[in-house]
Protein backbone atom coordinates (compact mmCIF):
# COMPACT_ATOMS: atom_id res chain seq x y z
CA UNK A 1 0.00 0.00 0.00
CA UNK A 2 2.35 2.68 -1.18
CA UNK A 3 0.15 5.54 -0.16
CA UNK A 4 1.78 8.94 0.25
CA UNK A 5 3.99 8.69 3.27
CA UNK A 6 5.65 11.19 5.50
CA UNK A 7 9.38 10.84 6.06
CA UNK A 8 8.93 9.46 9.56
CA UNK A 9 6.52 6.80 8.27
CA UNK A 10 9.00 5.97 5.59
CA UNK A 11 11.80 5.53 8.12
CA UNK A 12 9.65 3.30 10.35
CA UNK A 13 8.59 1.15 7.41
CA UNK A 14 12.20 0.88 6.23
CA UNK A 15 13.38 -0.24 9.65
CA UNK A 16 10.66 -2.93 9.86
CA UNK A 17 11.36 -4.12 6.32
CA UNK A 18 15.08 -4.34 6.96
CA UNK A 19 14.56 -6.27 10.19
CA UNK A 20 12.29 -8.77 8.46
CA UNK A 21 14.69 -9.13 5.53
CA UNK A 22 17.66 -9.70 7.82
CA UNK A 23 15.69 -12.27 9.81
CA UNK A 24 14.87 -14.18 6.63
CA UNK A 25 18.45 -13.92 5.41
CA UNK A 26 19.99 -14.75 8.78
CA UNK A 27 20.52 -18.53 8.34
CA UNK A 28 22.57 -17.84 5.21
CA UNK A 29 24.58 -15.12 6.96
CA UNK A 30 25.16 -17.43 9.93
CA UNK A 31 26.36 -20.19 7.63
CA UNK A 32 28.70 -17.73 5.91
CA UNK A 33 30.19 -16.56 9.24
CA UNK A 34 30.50 -20.09 10.59
CA UNK A 35 32.43 -21.16 7.51
CA UNK A 36 35.31 -18.92 8.67
CA UNK A 37 35.39 -20.26 12.24
CA UNK A 38 37.40 -23.02 13.81
CA UNK A 39 35.18 -25.96 14.85
CA UNK A 40 35.65 -24.94 18.49
CA UNK A 41 34.37 -21.42 17.77
CA UNK A 42 31.51 -22.82 15.68
CA UNK A 43 30.17 -24.73 18.69
CA UNK A 44 30.95 -21.99 21.26
CA UNK A 45 28.24 -20.98 23.75
CA UNK A 46 27.52 -18.07 23.84
CA UNK A 47 27.79 -17.97 20.04
CA UNK A 48 30.55 -15.83 18.54
CA UNK A 49 29.13 -13.44 15.96
CA UNK A 50 32.05 -11.47 14.60
CA UNK A 51 34.84 -11.66 17.16
CA UNK A 52 36.39 -15.02 16.55
CA UNK A 53 39.61 -16.20 15.01
CA UNK A 54 38.87 -15.91 11.26
CA UNK A 55 40.29 -18.75 9.22
CA UNK A 56 39.95 -20.11 5.69
CA UNK A 57 41.15 -23.58 6.67
CA UNK A 58 37.65 -25.04 6.28
CA UNK A 59 37.60 -24.21 2.60
CA UNK A 60 40.84 -26.10 2.02
CA UNK A 61 39.51 -28.94 4.16
CA UNK A 62 36.32 -29.29 2.09
CA UNK A 63 38.39 -30.35 -0.89
CA UNK A 64 40.39 -32.98 0.99
CA UNK A 65 37.46 -34.35 3.02
CA UNK A 66 34.58 -34.52 0.55
CA UNK A 67 36.23 -33.85 -2.82
CA UNK A 68 34.42 -30.62 -3.64
CA UNK A 69 35.87 -30.24 -7.12
CA UNK A 70 34.53 -33.55 -8.42
CA UNK A 71 31.02 -32.81 -7.11
CA UNK A 72 31.12 -29.26 -8.44
CA UNK A 73 32.16 -30.48 -11.88
CA UNK A 74 29.28 -32.95 -11.85
CA UNK A 75 26.86 -30.19 -10.87
CA UNK A 76 28.13 -27.96 -13.67
CA UNK A 77 28.11 -30.72 -16.27
CA UNK A 78 24.60 -31.81 -15.27
CA UNK A 79 22.97 -28.39 -15.09
CA UNK A 80 24.69 -26.91 -18.14
CA UNK A 81 24.44 -30.11 -20.19
CA UNK A 82 20.77 -30.62 -19.37
CA UNK A 83 20.16 -27.01 -20.30
CA UNK A 84 21.92 -26.97 -23.62
CA UNK A 85 20.11 -30.14 -24.63
CA UNK A 86 16.83 -28.69 -23.36
CA UNK A 87 17.31 -25.44 -25.27
CA UNK A 88 18.20 -27.25 -28.50
CA UNK A 89 14.88 -29.09 -28.26
CA UNK A 90 12.84 -26.20 -26.94
CA UNK A 91 13.91 -23.29 -29.16
CA UNK A 92 12.52 -24.79 -32.38
CA UNK A 93 9.39 -25.96 -30.56
CA UNK A 94 8.73 -22.60 -28.90
CA UNK A 95 9.49 -20.80 -32.15
CA UNK A 96 6.94 -22.73 -34.12
CA UNK A 97 4.28 -22.46 -31.41
CA UNK A 98 4.77 -18.70 -31.10
CA UNK A 99 4.98 -17.82 -34.81
CA UNK A 100 3.13 -20.56 -36.62
CA UNK A 101 0.41 -21.48 -34.12
CA UNK A 102 -2.22 -24.00 -35.07
CA UNK A 103 -5.55 -24.87 -33.47
CA UNK A 104 -3.80 -27.36 -31.28
CA UNK A 105 -0.96 -25.14 -30.04
CA UNK A 106 -2.73 -24.12 -26.87
CA UNK A 107 -3.65 -27.69 -26.01
CA UNK A 108 -0.10 -28.76 -26.72
CA UNK A 109 1.28 -26.14 -24.34
CA UNK A 110 -1.15 -27.15 -21.62
CA UNK A 111 -0.27 -30.78 -22.10
CA UNK A 112 3.45 -30.05 -21.83
CA UNK A 113 2.76 -28.18 -18.63
CA UNK A 114 0.82 -31.13 -17.26
CA UNK A 115 3.82 -33.43 -17.68
CA UNK A 116 5.64 -31.16 -15.24
CA UNK A 117 3.01 -32.01 -12.62
CA UNK A 118 3.93 -35.67 -12.54
CA UNK A 119 5.48 -36.32 -9.13
CA UNK A 120 8.97 -37.79 -9.23
CA UNK A 121 8.06 -40.23 -6.49
CA UNK A 122 5.14 -41.45 -8.59
CA UNK A 123 7.33 -42.87 -11.31
CA UNK A 124 10.39 -43.44 -9.18
CA UNK A 125 10.08 -47.22 -9.22
CA UNK A 126 9.87 -47.39 -13.00
CA UNK A 127 12.83 -45.08 -13.58
CA UNK A 128 14.88 -46.81 -10.92
CA UNK A 129 14.13 -50.16 -12.51
CA UNK A 130 14.90 -48.95 -16.05
CA UNK A 131 18.14 -47.37 -14.92
CA UNK A 132 19.13 -50.43 -12.92
CA UNK A 133 18.67 -52.65 -15.97
CA UNK A 134 20.18 -50.11 -18.37
CA UNK A 135 23.22 -49.49 -16.15
CA UNK A 136 22.30 -45.82 -15.98
CA UNK A 137 22.29 -45.54 -12.19
CA UNK A 138 25.01 -43.16 -11.04
CA UNK A 139 25.75 -42.02 -14.60
CA UNK A 140 25.84 -38.40 -15.78
CA UNK A 141 23.93 -39.31 -18.94
CA UNK A 142 21.13 -40.93 -16.96
CA UNK A 143 20.62 -38.14 -14.43
CA UNK A 144 21.31 -35.46 -17.05
CA UNK A 145 18.51 -36.81 -19.22
CA UNK A 146 16.08 -36.68 -16.31
CA UNK A 147 17.04 -33.11 -15.41
CA UNK A 148 16.59 -32.13 -19.05
CA UNK A 149 13.19 -33.73 -19.41
CA UNK A 150 11.73 -32.45 -16.14
CA UNK A 151 12.74 -28.88 -17.01
CA UNK A 152 11.78 -29.07 -20.68
CA UNK A 153 8.18 -27.91 -20.14
CA UNK A 154 9.38 -24.85 -18.19
CA UNK A 155 11.96 -24.02 -20.85
CA UNK A 156 9.43 -24.32 -23.68
CA UNK A 157 6.93 -22.21 -21.78
CA UNK A 158 9.34 -19.44 -20.88
CA UNK A 159 10.71 -19.23 -24.41
CA UNK A 160 7.17 -19.23 -25.75
CA UNK A 161 6.20 -16.24 -23.60
CA UNK A 162 9.35 -14.37 -24.68
CA UNK A 163 8.94 -15.20 -28.38
CA UNK A 164 5.33 -14.06 -28.21
CA UNK A 165 6.59 -10.57 -27.40
CA UNK A 166 8.66 -10.34 -30.58
CA UNK A 167 6.70 -8.27 -33.15
CA UNK A 168 5.40 -10.49 -35.95
CA UNK A 169 5.68 -7.65 -38.50
CA UNK A 170 9.43 -8.00 -38.58
CA UNK A 171 9.19 -11.67 -39.39
CA UNK A 172 6.67 -11.01 -42.13
CA UNK A 173 8.95 -8.37 -43.61
CA UNK A 174 11.77 -10.90 -43.63
CA UNK A 175 9.53 -13.45 -45.34
CA UNK A 176 8.51 -10.89 -47.97
CA UNK A 177 12.17 -10.36 -48.69
CA UNK A 178 12.40 -14.06 -49.37
CA UNK A 179 14.27 -15.13 -46.25
CA UNK A 180 14.24 -18.88 -45.87
CA UNK A 181 12.95 -20.43 -42.69
CA UNK A 182 16.49 -21.15 -41.63
CA UNK A 183 17.72 -17.62 -42.28
CA UNK A 184 14.66 -16.21 -40.59
CA UNK A 185 15.53 -18.10 -37.43
CA UNK A 186 19.26 -17.38 -37.53
CA UNK A 187 19.34 -13.73 -38.62
CA UNK A 188 16.04 -12.23 -37.57
CA UNK A 189 14.67 -14.15 -34.67
CA UNK A 190 17.72 -15.22 -32.71
CA UNK A 191 19.21 -11.78 -32.11
CA UNK A 192 15.87 -10.58 -30.75
CA UNK A 193 15.38 -13.71 -28.72
CA UNK A 194 18.78 -13.83 -27.04
CA UNK A 195 17.74 -11.98 -23.85
CA UNK A 196 14.76 -14.30 -23.39
CA UNK A 197 16.88 -17.38 -24.05
CA UNK A 198 19.48 -16.18 -21.55
CA UNK A 199 16.87 -15.65 -18.84
CA UNK A 200 15.37 -19.04 -19.54
CA UNK A 201 18.78 -20.65 -19.28
CA UNK A 202 19.49 -18.97 -15.94
CA UNK A 203 16.27 -20.16 -14.35
CA UNK A 204 16.69 -23.63 -15.71
CA UNK A 205 20.29 -23.87 -14.45
CA UNK A 206 19.06 -22.89 -10.97
CA UNK A 207 16.35 -25.55 -10.99
CA UNK A 208 18.73 -28.27 -12.19
CA UNK A 209 21.47 -27.29 -9.75
CA UNK A 210 19.14 -27.56 -6.77
CA UNK A 211 17.17 -30.61 -7.90
CA UNK A 212 17.41 -33.09 -5.04
CA UNK A 213 15.03 -35.98 -5.64
CA UNK A 214 16.56 -37.64 -8.67
CA UNK A 215 20.13 -36.61 -7.87
CA UNK A 216 19.96 -38.07 -4.35
CA UNK A 217 18.27 -41.28 -5.44
CA UNK A 218 19.98 -42.09 -8.72
CA UNK A 219 23.56 -41.02 -8.08
CA UNK A 220 26.08 -42.24 -5.60
CA UNK A 221 29.72 -41.63 -6.49
CA UNK A 222 30.53 -41.11 -10.17
CA UNK A 223 27.70 -38.78 -11.07
CA UNK A 224 27.05 -37.31 -7.61
CA UNK A 225 26.54 -33.52 -7.73
CA UNK A 226 26.78 -31.02 -4.87
CA UNK A 227 23.36 -31.92 -3.44
CA UNK A 228 24.82 -35.35 -2.61
CA UNK A 229 28.05 -33.93 -1.27
CA UNK A 230 26.06 -31.91 1.26
CA UNK A 231 23.79 -34.86 2.06
CA UNK A 232 26.89 -36.81 3.13
CA UNK A 233 27.01 -34.50 6.15
CA UNK A 234 23.72 -35.90 7.43
CA UNK A 235 25.51 -38.64 9.39
CA UNK A 236 28.82 -37.05 10.33
CA UNK A 237 31.47 -37.96 12.84
CA UNK A 238 32.85 -35.44 15.33
CA UNK A 239 32.54 -31.69 15.07
CA UNK A 240 31.59 -30.64 11.56
CA UNK A 241 29.64 -27.35 11.60
CA UNK A 242 32.41 -25.15 10.26
CA UNK A 243 33.21 -27.68 7.57
CA UNK A 244 29.53 -28.11 6.66
CA UNK A 245 29.21 -24.31 6.44
CA UNK A 246 32.20 -23.96 4.14
CA UNK A 247 30.95 -26.79 1.92
CA UNK A 248 27.48 -25.21 1.85
CA UNK A 249 28.79 -21.77 0.92
CA UNK A 250 30.76 -23.34 -1.94
CA UNK A 251 27.69 -25.31 -3.04
CA UNK A 252 25.23 -22.41 -3.11
CA UNK A 253 27.36 -19.35 -3.95
CA UNK A 254 27.29 -19.70 -7.75
CA UNK A 255 23.54 -20.22 -7.84
CA UNK A 256 22.83 -17.46 -5.32
CA UNK A 257 24.62 -14.99 -7.56
CA UNK A 258 22.90 -16.22 -10.73
CA UNK A 259 19.63 -16.22 -8.84
CA UNK A 260 19.91 -12.62 -7.77
CA UNK A 261 20.40 -11.60 -11.39
CA UNK A 262 17.43 -13.55 -12.63
CA UNK A 263 14.85 -12.89 -9.90
CA UNK A 264 12.47 -11.08 -12.23
CA UNK A 265 12.46 -13.94 -14.73
CA UNK A 266 11.79 -16.29 -11.86
CA UNK A 267 8.23 -15.04 -11.52
CA UNK A 268 7.51 -15.51 -15.19
CA UNK A 269 9.19 -18.89 -15.40
CA UNK A 270 7.69 -20.46 -12.32
CA UNK A 271 4.15 -19.23 -12.82
CA UNK A 272 4.08 -20.08 -16.53
CA UNK A 273 3.14 -16.50 -17.28
CA UNK A 274 0.09 -16.59 -15.01
CA UNK A 275 1.43 -13.71 -12.89
CA UNK A 276 3.03 -10.77 -14.63
Amino acid sequence: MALKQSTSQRVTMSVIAWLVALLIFFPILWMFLTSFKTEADAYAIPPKFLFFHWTTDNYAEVQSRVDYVRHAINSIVLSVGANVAGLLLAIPAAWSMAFAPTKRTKDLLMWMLSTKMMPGAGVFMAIYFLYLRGHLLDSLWGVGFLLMIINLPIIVWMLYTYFKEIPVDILEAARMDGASLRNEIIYVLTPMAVPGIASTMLLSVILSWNEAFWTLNLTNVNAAPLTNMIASFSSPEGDFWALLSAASVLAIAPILIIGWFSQRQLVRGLTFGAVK
Partner: protein
Amino acid sequence: MATRQTAAAARTLVAPSVILLFLWMIVPLAMTIYFSLLNYNLLEPDAVRFIGIQNYLDFLSDPDFIGALINTLILVAAVLAITVIGGIFVALLMDQQIYGRNVVRVLVIAPFFVMPTVSALIWKNMLMNPVQGLFAWIARSLGLPAIDWFTNYPMLAVIIIVAWQWLPFASLILLTALQSLDEEQKEAATLDGAKAVSYFFYIVVPHIARAITVVVLIETIFLLNVFAEIRVTTNGGPSTTNIPFRIFELAVNANDVGASAAGGIVAVVLANIVAVFLVRMIGKNLEG
Protein backbone atom coordinates in the same frame (compact mmCIF):
# COMPACT_ATOMS: atom_id res chain seq x y z
CA MET B 1 -0.30 -16.11 -41.51
CA ALA B 2 1.23 -19.55 -41.67
CA THR B 3 1.58 -20.98 -45.14
CA ARG B 4 1.25 -24.70 -45.67
CA GLN B 5 5.02 -24.94 -45.90
CA THR B 6 5.61 -23.19 -42.58
CA ALA B 7 2.90 -25.27 -40.95
CA ALA B 8 4.69 -28.43 -41.99
CA ALA B 9 8.01 -27.03 -40.79
CA ALA B 10 6.38 -26.03 -37.52
CA ARG B 11 5.22 -29.56 -36.90
CA THR B 12 8.72 -30.88 -37.52
CA LEU B 13 10.15 -28.38 -35.08
CA VAL B 14 7.71 -29.23 -32.31
CA ALA B 15 7.93 -32.98 -32.82
CA PRO B 16 11.17 -33.80 -30.93
CA SER B 17 10.02 -32.09 -27.72
CA VAL B 18 6.56 -33.59 -27.94
CA ILE B 19 7.82 -37.11 -28.64
CA LEU B 20 10.31 -37.00 -25.77
CA LEU B 21 7.81 -35.61 -23.29
CA PHE B 22 5.25 -38.14 -24.44
CA LEU B 23 7.67 -41.02 -23.89
CA TRP B 24 8.68 -39.55 -20.53
CA MET B 25 5.06 -39.46 -19.51
CA ILE B 26 3.77 -42.71 -20.91
CA VAL B 27 6.63 -45.19 -20.47
CA PRO B 28 7.27 -44.79 -16.72
CA LEU B 29 3.57 -44.45 -16.05
CA ALA B 30 2.68 -47.61 -17.97
CA MET B 31 5.50 -49.47 -16.26
CA THR B 32 4.42 -48.21 -12.86
CA ILE B 33 0.83 -49.31 -13.44
CA TYR B 34 2.05 -52.70 -14.63
CA PHE B 35 4.38 -53.18 -11.64
CA SER B 36 1.65 -52.09 -9.28
CA LEU B 37 -0.40 -55.11 -10.30
CA LEU B 38 2.41 -57.56 -9.59
CA ASN B 39 3.74 -59.28 -6.52
CA TYR B 40 7.30 -58.26 -7.29
CA ASN B 41 10.18 -58.09 -4.85
CA LEU B 42 13.68 -57.62 -6.21
CA LEU B 43 14.97 -60.04 -3.59
CA GLU B 44 12.57 -62.79 -4.76
CA PRO B 45 12.77 -62.57 -8.55
CA ASP B 46 11.23 -66.04 -8.94
CA ALA B 47 8.06 -65.18 -7.04
CA VAL B 48 6.79 -62.58 -9.52
CA ARG B 49 3.10 -63.00 -10.29
CA PHE B 50 -0.01 -61.05 -11.14
CA ILE B 51 -2.05 -60.11 -8.08
CA GLY B 52 -4.49 -57.50 -9.40
CA ILE B 53 -5.24 -54.63 -7.10
CA GLN B 54 -3.84 -56.36 -4.02
CA ASN B 55 -0.92 -53.90 -3.76
CA TYR B 56 -3.35 -50.99 -3.70
CA LEU B 57 -5.44 -52.64 -1.01
CA ASP B 58 -2.30 -53.33 1.01
CA PHE B 59 -0.90 -49.86 0.48
CA LEU B 60 -4.14 -48.06 1.28
CA SER B 61 -4.89 -50.16 4.38
CA ASP B 62 -1.30 -49.98 5.63
CA PRO B 63 -1.17 -47.79 8.76
CA ASP B 64 2.19 -46.49 7.49
CA PHE B 65 0.46 -45.22 4.36
CA ILE B 66 -2.32 -43.52 6.32
CA GLY B 67 0.38 -41.94 8.47
CA ALA B 68 2.33 -40.87 5.40
CA LEU B 69 -0.81 -39.41 3.84
CA ILE B 70 -1.62 -37.46 6.99
CA ASN B 71 1.98 -36.22 7.25
CA THR B 72 1.91 -35.13 3.61
CA LEU B 73 -1.29 -33.17 4.15
CA ILE B 74 -0.03 -31.57 7.37
CA LEU B 75 3.22 -30.53 5.69
CA VAL B 76 1.50 -29.08 2.63
CA ALA B 77 -1.21 -27.26 4.59
CA ALA B 78 1.12 -25.80 7.24
CA VAL B 79 3.73 -24.60 4.75
CA LEU B 80 1.02 -23.08 2.55
CA ALA B 81 -0.52 -21.22 5.48
CA ILE B 82 2.82 -19.86 6.68
CA THR B 83 4.14 -18.87 3.27
CA VAL B 84 0.93 -17.27 1.98
CA ILE B 85 0.22 -15.23 5.12
CA GLY B 86 3.90 -14.42 5.65
CA GLY B 87 4.29 -13.75 1.93
CA ILE B 88 1.46 -11.19 1.91
CA PHE B 89 3.05 -9.45 4.89
CA VAL B 90 6.54 -9.39 3.34
CA ALA B 91 5.21 -8.32 -0.07
CA LEU B 92 3.24 -5.43 1.47
CA LEU B 93 6.38 -4.33 3.31
CA MET B 94 8.52 -4.46 0.19
CA ASP B 95 5.91 -2.52 -1.76
CA GLN B 96 6.35 0.50 0.55
CA GLN B 97 8.68 3.33 -0.34
CA ILE B 98 11.44 1.92 1.80
CA TYR B 99 15.11 2.83 1.72
CA GLY B 100 17.33 0.30 -0.02
CA ARG B 101 14.42 -1.65 -1.49
CA ASN B 102 16.62 -3.53 -3.95
CA VAL B 103 18.90 -4.82 -1.22
CA VAL B 104 15.90 -5.87 0.88
CA ARG B 105 14.57 -7.75 -2.12
CA VAL B 106 17.87 -9.54 -2.64
CA LEU B 107 18.01 -10.60 1.03
CA VAL B 108 14.41 -11.84 1.06
CA ILE B 109 14.67 -13.89 -2.13
CA ALA B 110 17.96 -15.58 -1.18
CA PRO B 111 16.63 -18.69 0.63
CA PHE B 112 14.83 -19.80 -2.52
CA PHE B 113 18.17 -20.37 -4.26
CA VAL B 114 19.65 -22.50 -1.49
CA MET B 115 19.67 -26.20 -2.35
CA PRO B 116 17.32 -28.28 -0.14
CA THR B 117 20.08 -30.39 1.42
CA VAL B 118 21.95 -27.25 2.53
CA SER B 119 18.93 -25.56 4.10
CA ALA B 120 17.91 -28.72 5.90
CA LEU B 121 21.33 -29.43 7.42
CA ILE B 122 22.13 -25.84 8.37
CA TRP B 123 18.78 -25.49 10.17
CA LYS B 124 18.94 -28.90 11.79
CA ASN B 125 22.44 -28.50 13.17
CA MET B 126 23.46 -24.92 13.65
CA LEU B 127 20.07 -23.42 14.47
CA MET B 128 17.94 -26.22 15.96
CA ASN B 129 20.52 -28.29 17.84
CA PRO B 130 19.09 -28.58 21.40
CA VAL B 131 22.45 -28.01 23.14
CA GLN B 132 24.75 -25.87 21.02
CA GLY B 133 22.27 -24.51 18.45
CA LEU B 134 21.54 -20.81 18.21
CA PHE B 135 17.84 -21.20 19.04
CA ALA B 136 18.68 -23.12 22.21
CA TRP B 137 21.05 -20.34 23.27
CA ILE B 138 18.39 -17.68 22.59
CA ALA B 139 15.79 -19.64 24.56
CA ARG B 140 18.09 -20.12 27.53
CA SER B 141 19.14 -16.46 27.44
CA LEU B 142 15.47 -15.57 27.79
CA GLY B 143 15.14 -18.00 30.67
CA LEU B 144 13.11 -20.51 28.65
CA PRO B 145 13.83 -24.22 28.26
CA ALA B 146 15.62 -25.10 25.02
CA ILE B 147 13.47 -27.05 22.55
CA ASP B 148 14.76 -30.36 21.24
CA TRP B 149 13.22 -29.85 17.81
CA PHE B 150 13.98 -33.09 16.04
CA THR B 151 13.26 -35.31 19.05
CA ASN B 152 10.04 -33.73 20.23
CA TYR B 153 8.63 -31.82 17.25
CA PRO B 154 10.21 -33.34 14.14
CA MET B 155 7.32 -32.44 11.84
CA LEU B 156 7.23 -28.85 13.08
CA ALA B 157 10.96 -28.58 12.46
CA VAL B 158 10.58 -29.85 8.89
CA ILE B 159 7.66 -27.47 8.34
CA ILE B 160 9.76 -24.51 9.48
CA ILE B 161 12.64 -25.43 7.19
CA VAL B 162 10.43 -25.96 4.14
CA ALA B 163 8.43 -22.80 4.87
CA TRP B 164 11.69 -20.82 5.02
CA GLN B 165 12.55 -22.10 1.56
CA TRP B 166 9.18 -21.21 0.06
CA LEU B 167 8.42 -17.90 1.78
CA PRO B 168 10.60 -15.98 -0.73
CA PHE B 169 8.72 -17.50 -3.65
CA ALA B 170 5.33 -16.46 -2.26
CA SER B 171 6.65 -13.01 -1.37
CA LEU B 172 8.13 -12.41 -4.80
CA ILE B 173 5.03 -13.52 -6.72
CA LEU B 174 2.70 -11.52 -4.47
CA LEU B 175 4.97 -8.46 -4.71
CA THR B 176 4.84 -8.70 -8.50
CA ALA B 177 1.05 -8.78 -8.31
CA LEU B 178 0.96 -5.85 -5.86
CA GLN B 179 3.16 -3.74 -8.09
CA SER B 180 0.72 -4.07 -10.95
CA LEU B 181 -1.92 -2.36 -8.82
CA ASP B 182 -1.71 0.90 -10.65
CA GLU B 183 -0.75 4.20 -9.07
CA GLU B 184 -4.03 5.84 -10.03
CA GLN B 185 -5.96 3.30 -8.06
CA LYS B 186 -3.69 3.90 -5.10
CA GLU B 187 -4.06 7.69 -5.47
CA ALA B 188 -7.82 7.42 -5.73
CA ALA B 189 -7.93 5.35 -2.58
CA THR B 190 -5.90 8.03 -0.78
CA LEU B 191 -8.18 10.80 -2.01
CA ASP B 192 -11.23 8.91 -0.87
CA GLY B 193 -9.60 8.80 2.52
CA ALA B 194 -9.71 5.01 2.51
CA LYS B 195 -8.52 3.56 5.77
CA ALA B 196 -5.59 1.19 5.52
CA VAL B 197 -7.67 -1.78 6.65
CA SER B 198 -10.55 -1.31 4.24
CA TYR B 199 -8.08 -0.44 1.48
CA PHE B 200 -6.40 -3.76 2.13
CA PHE B 201 -9.55 -5.86 2.11
CA TYR B 202 -11.47 -4.14 -0.68
CA ILE B 203 -8.71 -3.25 -3.10
CA VAL B 204 -5.51 -5.16 -2.37
CA VAL B 205 -6.92 -8.61 -1.61
CA PRO B 206 -9.19 -8.83 -4.67
CA HIS B 207 -6.32 -7.60 -6.82
CA ILE B 208 -3.87 -10.24 -5.64
CA ALA B 209 -6.41 -13.05 -5.22
CA ARG B 210 -5.38 -14.60 -8.51
CA ALA B 211 -1.69 -14.49 -7.61
CA ILE B 212 -2.47 -16.12 -4.26
CA THR B 213 -4.24 -18.95 -6.06
CA VAL B 214 -1.26 -19.42 -8.36
CA VAL B 215 1.11 -19.49 -5.38
CA VAL B 216 -1.05 -22.06 -3.60
CA LEU B 217 -1.31 -24.35 -6.61
CA ILE B 218 2.35 -24.22 -7.64
CA GLU B 219 3.62 -24.63 -4.10
CA THR B 220 1.27 -27.57 -3.58
CA ILE B 221 2.77 -29.39 -6.54
CA PHE B 222 6.27 -28.93 -5.15
CA LEU B 223 5.29 -29.56 -1.52
CA LEU B 224 3.61 -32.86 -2.34
CA ASN B 225 7.10 -33.89 -3.47
CA VAL B 226 9.22 -32.78 -0.50
CA PHE B 227 11.91 -35.40 -0.13
CA ALA B 228 15.49 -34.21 0.43
CA GLU B 229 14.66 -32.22 3.56
CA ILE B 230 13.24 -35.34 5.20
CA ARG B 231 15.96 -37.63 3.90
CA VAL B 232 18.81 -35.62 5.44
CA THR B 233 17.15 -34.59 8.72
CA THR B 234 14.91 -37.30 10.17
CA ASN B 235 15.38 -39.94 7.47
CA GLY B 236 11.74 -40.87 7.87
CA GLY B 237 10.23 -42.03 11.14
CA PRO B 238 6.50 -42.13 11.92
CA SER B 239 6.04 -38.39 12.31
CA THR B 240 7.77 -37.10 9.16
CA THR B 241 7.51 -39.87 6.56
CA ASN B 242 5.42 -38.46 3.71
CA ILE B 243 4.20 -40.26 0.61
CA PRO B 244 7.32 -39.67 -1.55
CA PHE B 245 9.50 -40.87 1.30
CA ARG B 246 7.31 -43.94 1.89
CA ILE B 247 7.56 -44.85 -1.80
CA PHE B 248 11.33 -44.43 -1.60
CA GLU B 249 11.50 -46.68 1.48
CA LEU B 250 9.43 -49.41 -0.17
CA ALA B 251 11.56 -49.33 -3.29
CA VAL B 252 15.07 -48.91 -1.93
CA ASN B 253 14.90 -50.39 1.56
CA ALA B 254 12.30 -53.11 1.07
CA ASN B 255 13.01 -53.74 -2.64
CA ASP B 256 9.25 -54.11 -3.02
CA VAL B 257 8.64 -53.03 -6.60
CA GLY B 258 4.92 -53.79 -6.59
CA ALA B 259 4.02 -51.94 -3.39
CA SER B 260 6.20 -48.94 -4.28
CA ALA B 261 4.61 -48.72 -7.72
CA ALA B 262 1.12 -48.78 -6.20
CA GLY B 263 2.18 -45.94 -3.91
CA GLY B 264 3.52 -44.08 -6.94
CA ILE B 265 0.17 -44.28 -8.70
CA VAL B 266 -1.54 -42.94 -5.58
CA ALA B 267 0.92 -40.00 -5.61
CA VAL B 268 0.24 -39.34 -9.29
CA VAL B 269 -3.51 -39.26 -8.62
CA LEU B 270 -3.05 -36.83 -5.71
CA ALA B 271 -0.86 -34.50 -7.81
CA ASN B 272 -3.34 -34.60 -10.65
CA ILE B 273 -6.17 -33.37 -8.48
CA VAL B 274 -4.14 -30.18 -7.94
CA ALA B 275 -2.81 -30.08 -11.48
CA VAL B 276 -6.28 -29.98 -13.03
CA PHE B 277 -7.06 -26.71 -11.25
CA LEU B 278 -3.68 -25.16 -12.01
CA VAL B 279 -3.69 -26.05 -15.69
CA ARG B 280 -7.19 -24.65 -16.06
CA MET B 281 -6.16 -21.34 -14.45
CA ILE B 282 -3.07 -20.94 -16.59
CA GLY B 283 -5.07 -21.91 -19.66
CA LYS B 284 -7.50 -19.05 -19.02
CA ASN B 285 -4.58 -16.64 -18.97
CA LEU B 286 -3.35 -17.93 -22.30
CA GLU B 287 -6.37 -16.56 -24.16
CA GLY B 288 -5.04 -13.02 -24.02
